[in-house]
């Protein structure tokens, strides 16, 4: 392999110094400023990857983000990243790249056998082949497809880099920093509007950097430099290179994707930054992408877009071949021929599909001695792993006879230009077909609209379908003025820049080359390179009845690869239109969806990973738990101790010990996470009567009542103890997970239904630490602290009182979720840890021990108390749980009352709560179903109940469970079968759900 560098060329590179990198294990060198693609090409290698389906050898076809072929795996270890485009990867010292989708090597790939089977792998192959027999899916088809699917491998290690989001508000955002974007920015900012200008590549100027031209009497590159300077001097302009406009969304929201450290991984700082922008107006100056031509062998490495050939030559000093044939249907292709010839690269001929050829650019090429073949086409490209020549024929024919062969090692093709309308279209901007230029352009009359109903996106330059330099600049100037006006500013720049545009002869739309190519040629003419979709596949889809372009896309996979059809969309839908015998605009385009090119998962996540993915809520006693063996359990955003595990114990041992200690002595629980919502006001009682199924207005101050809360649908959504504080104040306890949404639920009704009621709510959950002291010796412990009187007459069950314990102001509730004598002590959050320690000290003599959430669950289940989320799942009403006693019959109305009167809710056939005792003392599996006779339509056993809570009960020394069973309460003593997923059958008897202390004597002690 020999260098393909051309001395004196390469605007973007510094040819005086070298950069070392590794490609497929080989040490290569490039220059600072190279892309990976230009460096590998410069080193003389064209093949960079294999196609997805047929594993055909592929080289780069483009030089920018539209590249479908040159996808590589970058980096190693924890910086490994698949499917990166070599054409947009900036070269740096030490870059490590590996080609993908090939084995064992790029040159010799086993999967290439698929190409030999191409006739057996037509469009819709998977659908046709893998449908039947059904049972083949799991073991044969799916593993095969999974193995074949995807290009690069997924990374396996944790990403060591950091990423960030930035929120940005501005008047005008301009996407694209070519001459159109620069001119639009200059004009728009001149009136004082705040302008953000984003360019996806590392360079300003866009196409003129390769194609040149003259603006305001100076070389275009000089004009670009001067404009950059002018913009940089303006305080109201912010500019970013390496920052792609990724998506345009509702109401002027857009995403910018900035790559900061891809080529400098050793520097500190975030690797990527996601800009979350709100912009009053957006200008899409996103340029245009050249289209390939569909001729046989157009995917052989060395066949490239004519514009890419110019880019590699002018920007990176790389000649893609020594003998380059140019094939075109428009005048632009001649620019490539002229540029190559001027750099002393042999151009054997330009093949122009137009019978009369082109305009001034053609004549310039001819004057340089380049032969032009008018009305001719490439019949086929000769070669396998590289181009060896082309066979030419008449364009207006079937390609049955080749006139002659021309030896060459590269082909530059130009099929015309397609404006990059993606960002215009993301949020609903419509397109119109410009038949004269053969392209879809934004329809100015149907823009994406914002909150005010006005269009908020303005296309500019080539993105608006203007392809001549002078038109590009004028159009961009107008867009800048209009955007400035829309944000209330008047642009001070009034003059359109003057550019010399070379006149061009009309394009001849060419969707297949030659125009009536037979099957043999069509089946070698690629539309979608990455997914291996050919002209013949789209034609076959049409023949099989596919008419919608969206359906055809999915059937053939055209445009579904990582490049999202940037090169293939227009050619593909033109072929479909042709096959269906209809005009292109009738077929229309597929939907353009963000992001424009793939963005990293890291950028999407931003800072939200690891510890800051979600805030962790800590109770005041969190640190104490942490240093005392807490086995943490996430409960919503809280962390709660599941159990406090001692040395030598298993978690199960610890739970058993904690339960026994509560039943026999005294335990202490951090109950701070329970919701505490204060409800106050003259109408608070009336309001709570609507919120709860029970009557809360009649609760006496100083008393507590267990309450149920239902949704308007009638389903049980939360429970908890309500304490009446004074005449117009209630304190509502909610479940741990319910605090925020129950507060929101109350506010919703207050604000939107009963807004004239005088009620105020406050969520005090985090203002108080709450400590439960539970067990037969609980009172002894608290009395040892000194302070308030807690004997049964002073504080009977279901009452509360304010007072002092160990010198702290406390509110003590005598309520129980364990069936034992129990006090819940609320204290200001800041006093929580100190009081907790005092209680432990005072309780040491009684053997006090902390207990966690699992012991709490076991204790409540032994008593048959329900748990929201275990016994309820959003389809369960209180009546199902035997809680009719907590549903007021005196109230005219409460949330859920009307719903509970509906036929299905009042149906006696519902599943209802029972206790379950498994045979052989087994512990039933949570969620296990009790089977009934017969089978359902899917052949599954019918069911008649399920387990909702199941534990080993240390108190009873056996497994206990609760469950919902069809007509359960009337079937006491019956035995149910619970087939286990382990293949065994578990049997359990229906019993009363209260397993322990049915009389409640301990509770009232």
């Amino acid at each position: 392999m020999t260098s393909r560098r051309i001395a004196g060329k390469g605007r973007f590179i510094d040819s005086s110094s070298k950069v070392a990198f590794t490609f497929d294990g080989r040490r290569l060198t490039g220059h600072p400023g190279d892309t990976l693609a230009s460096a590998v090409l410069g080193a003389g290698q064209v093949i960079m990857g294999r196609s997805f389906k047929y594993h055909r050898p592929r080289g780069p076809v483009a030089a920018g983000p539209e590249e479908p072929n040159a996808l590589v795996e970058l980096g190693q270890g924890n910086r490994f990243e698949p499917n990166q485009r070599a054409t947009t990867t900036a070269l740096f010292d030490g870059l490590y790249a590996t080609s993908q989708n090939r084995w064992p090597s790029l040159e010799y790939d086993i999967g290439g056998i698929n190409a030999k089977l191409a006739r057996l792998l037509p469009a819709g192959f998977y659908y046709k082949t893998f449908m039947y027999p059904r049972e083949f899916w799991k073991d044969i088809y799916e593993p095969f497809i999974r193995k074949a699917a995807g290009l690069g491998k997924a990374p396996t290690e944790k990403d060591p880099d950091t990423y960030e989001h930035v929120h940005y508000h501005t008047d005008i955002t301009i996407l694209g920093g070519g001459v159109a974007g620069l001119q639009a920015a200059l004009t728009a900012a001149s009136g004082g509007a705040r302008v953000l200008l984003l360019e996806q590549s590392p360079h300003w100027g866009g196409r003129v950097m390769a194609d040149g031209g003259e603006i305001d009497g100076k070389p275009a590159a000089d004009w670009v430099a001067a404009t950059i300077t002018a913009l940089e001097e303006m305080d109201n302009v912010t500019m970013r290179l390496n920052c792609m406009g990724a998506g345009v969304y509702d109401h002027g929201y857009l995403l910018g994707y900035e790559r900061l450290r891809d080529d400098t991984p050793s520097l500190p700082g975030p690797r990527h930054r996601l800009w979350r922008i709100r912009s009053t107006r957006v200008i899409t100056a996103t340029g245009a992408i050249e289209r390939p031509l569909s001729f046989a062998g157009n995917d052989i490495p060395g066949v490239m877009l004519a514009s890419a050939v110019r880019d590699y030559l002018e920007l990176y000093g790389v000649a893609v071949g020594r003998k380059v044939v140019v094939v075109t249907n428009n005048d632009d292709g001649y620019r490539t021929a002229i540029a190559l010839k001027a750099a002393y690269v042999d151009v054997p001929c330009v093949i122009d599909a137009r019978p009369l050829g082109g305009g001034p650019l053609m004549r310039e090429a001819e004057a340089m001695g380049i032969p032009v073949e008018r009305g001719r086409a490439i019949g086929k490209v000769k070669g396998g792993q590289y181009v060896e020549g082309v066979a030419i024929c008449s364009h207006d024919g079937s390609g049955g006879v080749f006139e002659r062969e021309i030896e060459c090692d590269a082909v530059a093709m130009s099929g015309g230009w397609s404006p990059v309308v993606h960002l215009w279209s993301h949020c609903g901007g419509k397109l119109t077909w410009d038949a004269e230029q053969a392209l879809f352009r934004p329809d100015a009359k149907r823009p994406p609209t914002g909150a005010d109903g006005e269009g908020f996106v303005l296309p500019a330059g080539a993105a608006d379908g203007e392809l001549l330099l002078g038109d590009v600049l004028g159009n961009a100037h107008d867009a800048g003025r209009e955007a400035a006006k829309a944000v209330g500013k008047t642009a001070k720049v009034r003059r359109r820049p003057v550019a010399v545009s070379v006149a061009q002869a009309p394009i001849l739309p060419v969707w297949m080359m030659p125009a009536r190519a037979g099957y043999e040629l069509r089946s070698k003419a690629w539309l979608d390179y990455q997914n291996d979709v050919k002209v013949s596949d789209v034609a076959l889809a049409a023949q099989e009845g596919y008419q919608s372009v969206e359906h055809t896309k999915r059937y053939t996979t055209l445009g579904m690869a990582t490049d999202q059809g940037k090169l293939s969309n227009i050619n593909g839908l033109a072929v479909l239109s042709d096959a269906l015998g209809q005009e292109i605009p009738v077929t229309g385009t597929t939907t353009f969806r963000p992001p424009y090119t793939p963005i990293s998962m890291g950028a999407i996540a931003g800072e939200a990973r690891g510890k800051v993915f979600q805030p962790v809520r800590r109770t005041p006693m969190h640190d104490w738990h942490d240093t005392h063996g807490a086995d943490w359990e996430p409960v919503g955003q809280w962390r709660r101790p599941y159990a406090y595990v001692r040395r030598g114990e298993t978690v199960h041992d610890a739970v058993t010990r904690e339960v026994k200690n509560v039943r026999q002595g005294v335990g202490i629980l951090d109950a701070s996470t329970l919701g505490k919502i204060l409800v106050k006001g003259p109408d608070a009682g009336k309001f709570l009567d609507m919120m709860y199924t029970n009557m809360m207005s009649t609760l006496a101050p100083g008393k507590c009542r267990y309450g149920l809360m239902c949704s308007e649908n009638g389903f049980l959504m939360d429970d908890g103890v309500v304490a009446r504080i004074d005449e117009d104040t209630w304190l509502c306890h909610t479940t741990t997970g319910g605090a925020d949404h129950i507060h929101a639920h109350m506010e919703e009704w207050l604000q939107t239904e009963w807004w004239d009621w005088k009620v105020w709510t406050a969520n005090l959950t985090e203002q108080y630490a709450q400590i439960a002291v539970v067990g037969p010796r609980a009172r002894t412990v608290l009395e040892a602290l000194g302070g308030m009187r807690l004997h049964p007459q002073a504080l009977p069950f279901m009452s509360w009182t304010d007072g002092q314990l160990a010198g702290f102001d406390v509110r003590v509730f005598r309520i129980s979720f364990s069936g034992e004598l129990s006090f819940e002590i609320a204290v200001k959050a800041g006093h929580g840890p100190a009081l907790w320690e005092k209680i432990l000290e005072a309780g040491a003599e009684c053997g006090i021990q902390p207990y966690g959430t699992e012991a709490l669950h076991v204790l409540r289940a032994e008593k048959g108390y329900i748990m929201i989320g275990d016994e309820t799942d959003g389809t369960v009403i209180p009546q199902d749980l035997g809680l009719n006693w907590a549903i007021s019959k005196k109230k005219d109305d409460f949330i859920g009352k009307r719903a509970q009167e509906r036929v299905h809710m009042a149906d006696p056939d519902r599943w209802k709560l029972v206790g379950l005792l498994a045979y052989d003392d087994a512990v039933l599996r949570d969620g296990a179903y009790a089977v009934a006779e017969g089978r359902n339509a899917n052949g599954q056993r019918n069911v008649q109940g399920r387990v909702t809570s199941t534990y080993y009960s240390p108190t009873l020394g056996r497994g206990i469970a609760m469950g919902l069973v069809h007509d359960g309460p009337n079937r006491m003593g019956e035995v149910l079968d619970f087939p286990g997923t382990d293949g065994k059958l578990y049997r359990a008897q229906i019993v009363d759900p209260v397993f322990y202390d049915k009389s409640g004597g301990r509770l009232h002690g």
Partner: protein
Amino acid sequence: MLTFRCPVCGVDAEETELSPGGEAHLKRYGPGSSDEDFSGYLFQRENPRGVHFERWRHAYGCGKWFHAARCTQTLEVFGTYPAQTTEPPQEILDTITKKRPGWTWRELGAK
């Protein structure tokens, strides 16, 4: 990613600050109502392509509920107004009539 001006606190709120609350101006039917009225209240919803009235809550802002009139097709917002009302303010109805002549929504709009 819509934006609405919260009529309570005046902030131009991003969709990430807001919680959607479904259709606005539902009349609650409680105990004593017919099955038809009740299921209409609980389950039947407009699904217009065009003018719509919705409830939103400025959840990560002032916490207040408000109403919004907008076009589901173009996402144009005709106005926002406080939730403490059973019908949209006349001013907003006039705005919609001006921008969408002949519009209807439930019993509102062109007769």
